């Protein structure tokens, strides 16, 4: 309701501002590409390749020195588990910027607000701002993307300008937007129920100098699933679908990150830890698990317009049991719970509007693949597999 109100307000403001000249600001990007995999189901369940379409159109209107309305509509087709059937409002917010004390700025945002988490969550929907087409899955799980991207509510951030750098704190509270893909991602394809209790909170504390960014972030969600008639969910020990019951997912995510830039090099590292409680969904099932991941990344600028990024990452679906073994009668391979990825990405800015990006990811294990709750044959085809992507982006 709140987001609809804000979105309507934004549309009215933009119409009102049509003749306001420089106060009205438009930007956009179109990214078209292709990804292919040697096995498993990141790109496609049936087949091994898929198109990449990422489109964003942003508008903002400055009402006065302190109040700005801004929003972005996006469309994303990014593999079978992250293809949106219709355009999505990534964010639509009113920002009030002020300074409550000397050498500081505070921003209050109301509406559908993006969540500042880790190094890349804030801008993960913007192709040009990512270090690679496919983000490090150890921290930015594709299958949970929309739960983390934004929430309908309020965010307050404060930036203090110290002599040595900037100390920033951001708090946000609201409701997550659960889209049609989420059932598929969480529970596989034979479910049609809905989700309630969508509250989310997030917090971020970071310190930045010209060369260094370091900080910690926290995010909490606890959506509840209400079954529909004839819902069926894969049941791990049996390996076949069973009737679903109501369920609840509680997830607390913690991030610690640092990025250091020196001359032509940029070094990044990020650690993520998730406490996940899954109750219900299938009879007698209750899972209390922790997931852990980290990556280290180096970006090198070969020229003014050409960069390379190399990355190593590990992800553990079971943090307490890093070899992946869950139960003696577990019917899927241990490596379903882990993933080790070495990747190389490159980005070439052809001119200020056109950018070409390409990725190659060598993966061992399938720990970050959907569906989230249980493995399937599609997600455990091969332990060693390759994921490649190429994308041409136009921004204006």
């Amino acid at each position, binding site marked *: 309701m709140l987001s609809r109100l804000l979105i309507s307000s934004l549309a009215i403001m933009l119409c009102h501002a049509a003749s306001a000249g420089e106060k009205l*600001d438009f930007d956009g990007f179109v990214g078209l590409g292709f990804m292919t995999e040697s096995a498993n189901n990141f790109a496609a369940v049936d087949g091994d390749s898929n198109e990449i379409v990422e489109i*964003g159109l942003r508008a903002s209107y*400055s009402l006065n020195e302190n109040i700005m309305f801004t929003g972005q509509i996006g469309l994303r087709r990014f593999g079978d588990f992250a293809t949106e059937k219709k355009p999505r409002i990534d964010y639509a917010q009113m920002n009030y910027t002020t300074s409550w004390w000397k050498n500081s*700025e505070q921003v209050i945002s109301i509406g559908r607000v993006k969540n500042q988490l880790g190094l890349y969550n804030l801008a993960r929907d913007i192709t040009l701002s990512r270090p690679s087409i496919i983000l490090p899955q150890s921290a930015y799980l594709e299958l949970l993307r929309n739960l983390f991207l934004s929430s309908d509510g309020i965010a307050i951030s404060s930036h203090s300008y110290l002599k040595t750098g900037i100390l920033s704190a951001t708090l946000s509270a609201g409701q997550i937007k659960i889209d049609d893909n989420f059932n598929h991602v969480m529970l596989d394809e034979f479910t049609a129920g809905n989700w309630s209790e969508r509250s989310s909170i997030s917090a971020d504390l970071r310190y930045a100098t010209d060369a260094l960014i370091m900080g910690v972030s926290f995010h909490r969600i606890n959506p509840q699933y209400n079954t529909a008639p004839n819902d069926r969910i894969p049941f791990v020990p049996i390996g076949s679908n069973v009737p679903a019951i109501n369920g609840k997912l509680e997830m607390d995510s913690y991030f610690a990150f640092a990025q250091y830039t020196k001359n032509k090099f940029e070094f990044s590292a990020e650690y993520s830890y998730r406490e996940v409680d899954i109750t219900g969904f299938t009879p007698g099932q209750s899972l209390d698990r922790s997931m852990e991941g980290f990556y280290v990344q180096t970006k090198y600028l070969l020229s003014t317009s050409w960069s390379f990024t190399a990355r190593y990452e590990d992800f553990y679906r079971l943090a307490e049991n890093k070899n992946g073994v869950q139960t003696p009668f577990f019917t899927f391979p241990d490596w379903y719970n882990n993933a080790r990825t070495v990747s190389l990405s490159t980005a070439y800015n052809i001119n200020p509007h056109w950018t070409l990006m390409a990725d190659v990811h060598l993966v061992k294990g399938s720990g970050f693949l959907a569906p989230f709750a249980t493995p399937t044959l599609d997600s455990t085809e091969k332990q060693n597999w390759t994921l490649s992507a190429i994308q041409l982006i136009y921004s204006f």
Partner: protein
Amino acid sequence: MIRLILATLKHDYFVKKAVFFLKLITGIFGLSAAVCQSVHASNNILLIIANKQMTAKLSEPISLDDVLSFYAMKRKLLSNGERATLLTHQLDSEASILFCKHLLDSFPYQVKRKWDVAVFSGRAIRPITLDTNQAIFTYIGENENAIGYVLVDSTQINQIEENFHVIATFN
């Protein structure tokens, strides 16, 4: 053992595929990079300028660090609480390359990426791009909160200082 060898061979196969793919991409980019012209810094002087009236409005004089924070999208407000309006030349212009490289310690495309993150996240307004020094002079002259940079001949400095607040000068 046989499974291990097979797995290794398959993995090698994927590695080879990846190497081939990279060589292909590298070849394409290498060709493009080779035809790019290098940019040579000239003897012109880079000036960071603001509206002449800005100093009188502010509780504290604007510093070079303030300006760099604005262009890095780390802050938005002047010391009087009003929003600064930033101007840039085209990113591939000599003025932008010098400004980004020597003052922001980045290439223009790195700076653009920071702007993209801030702008597309709904947290900032993109700097206004103008094509000529004259356009920047005109805009700053008409807008009290405007800040910009220009690459000018040293003979023009006195005249610019008469009409604008010069925040910093770089040879």
